[in-house]
């Protein structure tokens, strides 16, 4: 098992109190597994991704444990995490493409980054070029400025860079959401290629687009309001979801071929609860069509089938 997260709680500090963005999350990712994390904005999926690598200034580690390859990650300690970042666990952040310094050539940025981690550029340059080739980029991109590359090219360059030291875990946070559909596919398939080539052991792909992770992931985990709702192998989750939120979410997605006149889809009424003082019990209760008295108690995230977990009293 590559990654094991146990009872992780990470809150956001605000002047009006703690916002429970990630509240008691437990799951694992196997070697060679691509896990998709899906959910709507504010569900805690990006907080989860960041927690595994670097807490930003407003985030506060509360409790829980993260193990990577049977070693505990000191995620509460920014300095100690430096030994793991990039080498063991790497992140492609949401705005990676626009975060590239526009006044420096790609190659120089790579050199700076490697040297800041104590790795001489020359020792990896051959491998770097080989991998750029694998994602369809010329070595010549190293001599160019970020502005000269298209969004998809920048995204692929960042991906190669993030995985250069063969980390055991790569977290990709909404890396395709700003791309056109045809580039989106190339980037998503490059991620699978990284896993197949052994550049990374396992991957967490965070996205709001469940149909994108359906294409590439082995398992999908759905989050809702800071908690895990359901986790199952991809086909099981998409074809026979058990949590009412997953069911409603999937049924609200229009697919190519579905027409308004033929099959009128419906959304989920209401909106997620505020995470500053969230209500007790199941957080989906107010929007759930099958809620009953028992939902006043918090449902545990339990295994309801082979590798199929859900947090719902109706599902278990």
């Amino acid at each position, binding site marked *: 098992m590559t990654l094991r997260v146990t009872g992780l709680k990470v809150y956001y500090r605000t002047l009006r109190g703690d916002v429970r963005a990630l509240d008691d999350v437990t799951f694992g990712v196997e070697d060679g597994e691509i896990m998709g994390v899906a959910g709507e904005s504010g569900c805690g999926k990006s907080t989860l991704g960041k927690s595994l690598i670097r807490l930003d200034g407003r985030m506060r580690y509360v409790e829980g444990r993260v193990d990577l390859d049977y070693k505990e990650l000191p995620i509460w300690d920014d300095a100690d995490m430096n030994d793991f970042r990039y080498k063991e666990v790497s992140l492609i952040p949401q705005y990676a493409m626009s975060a590239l310094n526009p006044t420096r050539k790609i190659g120089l940025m790579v050199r700076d980054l490697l040297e800041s981690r104590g790795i001489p550029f020359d020792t990896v340059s051959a491998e770097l070029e080989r991998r750029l080739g694998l994602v369809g980029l010329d070595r010549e991109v190293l001599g160019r400025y970020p502005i000269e590359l298209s969004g998809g090219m920048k995204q692929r360059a960042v991906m190669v860079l993030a995985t250069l030291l063969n980390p055991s875990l790569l977290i990709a946070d909404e890396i395709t959401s700003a791309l056109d559909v045809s580039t989106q596919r190339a980037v998503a398939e490059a991620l699978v290629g990284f896993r197949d080539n052994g550049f990374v052991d396992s991957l967490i792909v965070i996205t709001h687009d469940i149909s994108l992770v*359906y294409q590439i992931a082995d398992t999908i985990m759905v989050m809702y309001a800071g908690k895990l709702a359901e986790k199952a192998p991809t086909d099981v989750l998409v074809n026979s979801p058990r949590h009412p939120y997953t069911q409603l979410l*999937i049924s609200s997605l*229009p697919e190519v071929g579905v027409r308004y006149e033929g099959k009128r889809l419906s959304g*989920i009424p209401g909106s997620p609860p505020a995470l500053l003082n969230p209500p007790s019990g199941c957080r989906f209760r107010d929007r759930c069509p099958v809620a009953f008295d028992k939902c006043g108690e918090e449902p545990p995230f339990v295994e309801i089938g082979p590798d199929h977990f859900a947090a719902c009293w109706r599902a278990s």
Partner: protein
Amino acid sequence: MLRLDGISKSFRIGVLGSRYVPAVRDVSFELRPGEVVSLIGESGSGKTTIGRMVLRLLPVSRGTITFDGKDIAAFHGRGLKDYYRTVQGVFQDPFSSYNPVFKADRVFAMIRTGYFPRIRDAVWREKVEDALIAVRLRPETVLDKYPHQLSGGQLQRLLIARALLLDIKLLVADEIISMLDASTRIDVLNLLGDLKERGLAILFITHDLALGNYVSDQTVILRRGNVVEAGATGAVFGNPTHPYTRRLLSSVPQLHRKWEQVESELSGVAGRCPVHTANDAGAALAEVSDDHRVACLALGEDRPCPDSAAVSAGTAGR
């Protein structure tokens, strides 16, 4: 009702504005009352530019846009104001559509100042509440709030309600749901469908083929400013003929069907035009079947598109 006739648009760029970059090239299509046309394209396809030209926010470089037979470029002052009484738009970013300094319901007040200066308070209030109910918003939950206190879905609906205050016949909806969450997207989309049933024409601009397919009667696929395929939505999606349309369709992530599966299905479709190439500039549209046109480079003055024969043979054989 709305007719685009060979419209083109180029933008001046460079230090002295010396270079012209074409954004839209020779695009023609038509919108009839109660019809939804989706304009589908990736970034740089010119879809937003077309929407802005229809809304008279950008001038047309060449070609004409007519609304009920009148050239919209000729509208000025009062004429333009009357045009906006019947044609309105909603844009992609709900947060940038509101002036952050003011409360969200100011968008209604602006309509009142511009179009109903003498209406009585009580009558106006009723009109606003009716429009809000039509977009399924509870007036008390959205009025008198700042934009950042409302969700993206609520803000977009407020903008649709704003348009409904006027006597509109055409709504230009530019990527209005791409920034919304999945669970609220479909409700806004259904709302557009309901408006269409009330006789409103909608120009639905999107990059998402599934969304375009869900609501529209007619589909126009754009690539780098050119129309590559157009026609009845069923025909375009049922028998995608242009290689670009096929590529888009095979790249859309779908639920229940993997990419490889879609791709193999598409490659089995009869009637691939061997002549359609990457460079479509100037390719004329050829009718491949009833209400289904595709850009074809091989089309000459008296040469039919090779595809039209192939497709009709293919469909006849089925």
